[in-house]
């Protein structure tokens, strides 16, 4: 019985309302924090940082964002890409308009702007539900990309319509964006962001706003009848979700790829993030991380696996296989646990709790 609450009595509700009421979990989180902040930066190679860690963090933000909207508030969205694009371009405009605005505020600002856009496209959700709502968000997806592509103002009239991240620093001289920034600096900067955002999300979802979201998700009529305002609640979900997606987009453009053309946020991204959320677990912040890890790591592993195994498979065959295995794994995990990796994790813990007995 390695994992058990037995003997960990909560003497107050406050204590019971901690994010991680159980000691083992707190320890685990602590370890992860140390690992992420202390150990990884020391050992991660540039390749690992730039192609695994950073995209993983960026996607986690997006996944948390979408999870708030789809997983918690139950509003299916396929507009994530569009909102991320909004974030990226907002960040670009902000940082080029106000060159000495601190990058942190640039990111937050782009988040806020995206939140507004999100609300705009969230309004139909009052009337339109389920898969039909997807259309509203798809409209956002395609319209926004078109807009950024079409209106040269967004790209400061660059002929190609591609924007590239201006170099920016924090604490005066530590470069975190642009080509001259060191990858570890980027990583740590992003990590802190992600940490805070995740914490905020977790808190929101366990306070009354979060409960309102879930109520709307589980049964909107009943929710309204017990006094939850549908419009405000849904819009708040859209706003906050978009806020996250916006920051994710900004991070994508400024920290990950360093340059962005609207096409980079095509519908595929929207689907990717949706997979992350579902594979990771709808309505679970932790799940968002699992999902992001799954979606970011798996392709990298699959593409490199043959090489590591010394097999010599032509690249096209590799990526076809990658597709097949990837699809198969999605299905496999859904069958094993439809509620995603997060739920699997829980069940694992429950089994640990019962261990060595089966049940």
């Amino acid at each position, binding site marked *: 019985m390695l994992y058990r609450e037995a003997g960990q009595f909560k003497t107050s509700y406050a204590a019971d309302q901690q994010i991680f009421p159980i000691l083992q979990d707190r320890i685990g989180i602590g370890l992860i924090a140390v690992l992420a902040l202390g150990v990884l930066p020391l050992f991660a190679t540039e390749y690992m940082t730039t192609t695994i860690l950073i995209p993983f963090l960026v996607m986690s933000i997006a996944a948390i964002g979408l999870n708030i909207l789809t997983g918690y508030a139950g509003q299916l969205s396929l507009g994530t890409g569009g909102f991320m694009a909004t974030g990226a371009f907002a960040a670009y405009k902000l940082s080029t308009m106000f060159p000495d605005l601190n990058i942190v505020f640039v990111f937050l600002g782009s988040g806020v702007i995206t939140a507004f856009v999100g609300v705009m496209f969230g309004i139909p959700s009052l009337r339109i539900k389920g898969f039909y709502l997807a259309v509203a968000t798809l409209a956002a997806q395609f319209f926004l990309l078109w807009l950024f592509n079409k209106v040269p103002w967004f790209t400061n009239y660059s002929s190609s319509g591609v924007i590239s991240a201006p170099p920016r620093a924090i604490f005066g001289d530590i470069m975190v964006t642009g080509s001259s920034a060191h990858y570890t600096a980027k990583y740590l900067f992003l990590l802190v962001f992600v940490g805070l955002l995740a914490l905020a999300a977790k808190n929101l979802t366990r306070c009354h706003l979060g409960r309102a979201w879930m109520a709307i998700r589980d049964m909107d009529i009943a929710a309204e009848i017990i006094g939850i305002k549908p419009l405000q609640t849904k819009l708040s979900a859209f706003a906050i979700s978009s806020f996250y997606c916006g920051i994710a987009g900004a991070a994508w453009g400024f920290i990950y790829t360093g340059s962005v053309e609207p096409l980079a946020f095509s519908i595929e991204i929207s689907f990717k993030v949706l997979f992350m959320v579902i594979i990771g677990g709808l309505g679970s912040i932790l799940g968002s991380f699992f999902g992001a890890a799954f979606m970011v790591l798996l392709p990298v592993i699959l593409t490199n696996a043959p090489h590591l195994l010394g097999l010599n498979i032509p690249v096209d065959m590799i990526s076809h296989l990658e597709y097949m295995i990837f699809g198969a794994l999605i299905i496999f995990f859904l069958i094993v646990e439809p509620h995603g990796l997060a739920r699997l994790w829980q*069940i694992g813990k*429950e*089994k640990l709790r*019962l261990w060595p007995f089966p*049940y």
Partner: protein
Amino acid sequence: MSQATLHAVQPASSPAAAEPILRVNNIEVIYDHVILVLKGVSLAVPEGGIVALLGANGAGKTTTLKAISNLLRAERGEVTKGTIDYNGRSIQDLTPNDLVKMGVVQVMEGRHCFGHLTVEENLLTGAYTRGDGAAAVKRDLEKVYEYFPRLKVRRSSQAGYTSGGEQQMVAIGRALMTKPKVILLDEPSMGLAPQLVEEIFEIVKQLNQKEGVSFLLAEQNTTIALKYATFGYILENGRVVMEGEAQRLMENDDVKEFYLGLAAEGRKSFKDVKHYRRRKRWL
């Protein structure tokens, strides 16, 4: 844990005399691989018998029925131990569809109508597995309408918009349309007006006597359940804690007090029940 039941659970006391059409042998059910719900339930339904399955909320009645009708899988639950036989042959690995074909049908707790289909269409889906021609189906449809005139009135409105009780009728009628030999009724009286409850049980009696349909009914309304049943089981926390002929059960003091509300001093008003009685009886 000790199972100090009044009547030790031994086949002798169960109606094995008439070779049971349905026999559940000491089954265990687990949900989600971790939640153990049935901890060894055994029961038998004799050919042409009406067996009542009683017990508090969460005792495991629904689970038992679903285990028999093989609907558990759809709930990510599984039978991990024990056997379930129908006419002497094991049915655990059959699909619900096979079972219905063989005459075992369940009326699910909480109605489960097809919201977008009209009342009549709902009833007709019940006839899906039947091969005995449109005429026969038509006849049975009329029969169901006789049983539940209200449904005839609402026949063409979407089931999703009918009242709770109406939906309950649809659910039962739908099951009747499958020409069953064994019906697993889960809380048939739920949400039905008093008369209707009586009627439902009258229908049960008729089917049982006229067409020899056997019943296993999970019912909370113990009074009426035992009135119509021939045999009864009482479930507590996933265990059969008591069983016997309906008559015998009705005479049992505990049953009298806790299920029939007939304390020694006779039926007492709900108003006067002062304290909540917390009593875990046979466990």
